[in-house]
């Protein structure tokens, strides 16, 4: 069976679900952050696939902007994680429980 759009849908869905599972399973804040990057990349892959299918360059520019936003997000997010590590000497997100009190 030749590769068609459904294959790409399944592949990105699989990668996205793996990202969701990782974000829910792990307690390390950095790993959770990496899983978010994985989910962003799954979406990027699907956008590029449909750009190829419909012969439209707009989707590839959306991927470009997603990468821009992801880079900015990583800079701020890692700064927050470093700050948290400085305060509590751990990257365990369960420590952030105490924010609710």
């Amino acid at each position, binding site marked *: 069976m*030749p*590769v*068609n*759009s*459904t*294959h790409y*849908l*399944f*592949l990105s*869905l*699989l*990668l996205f*679900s*793996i*990202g*969701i*599972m*990782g*974000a*829910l*399973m*792990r*307690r390390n804040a*950095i*790993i959770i*952050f*990496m*899983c978010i*990057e*994985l989910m962003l*990349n799954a979406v990027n*892959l699907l956008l*590029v*696939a449909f*750009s*190829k*299918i419909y*012969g439209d*360059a*707009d989707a*590839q*520019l959306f*991927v*470009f*902007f997603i*990468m821009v936003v*992801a*880079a*900015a997000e*990583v*800079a*701020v997010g890692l*700064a*927050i*994680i*470093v*700050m948290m590590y400085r305060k509590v000497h751990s*990257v*365990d997100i*369960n420590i952030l429980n105490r924010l609710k009190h």
Partner: protein
Amino acid sequence: MDIYDILFWVLSAMAVSCALGVILSRNPVNSVMFLILTFFAISGHYILMNAQFLAIVNIIVYAGAIMVLFLFVIMLMNLNADVEPQKGQLVQLAGVISGGVLFLVVLAGIKSARPIAIDKTASDIGLISNLGKVLFTKYVLPFEISSVLFLSAMIGAIVIGKKEEARPIAPRDEEL
């Protein structure tokens, strides 16, 4: 099975297995390495789909810059498998089940989607001249706004990452 299909299956297997390695490996450094491999597999997909510019940007920005940043932070904090916090078995099982349920629900949704054949001949929409034309005509405003976003992210990262003991007069910028 032509060469496109074979490459698709090889790259997909590599992407999915490395993504599983990201969430299953105990050592955070190994997770970063697996994620870099996943990004390389996704870049391979981009090349396969004639999105050469995005493939290169993906390698430079993601595998190059962002993952090196992650690696720096992990090594700065001296994290390894021993100090890695673990969730209880029940919470991990709950995470896997909820991820799997999401997978099944969306799978049921896209199962009935009409498959669209992919034109496997080379096209030039992913080349940098074509993308540049669209970027600087149709999407020039978002492009300029993203520069403001980067500026604010830069300032935000510096402000958040700064040490607490701010000197009252002329603090040295030792963070840079």
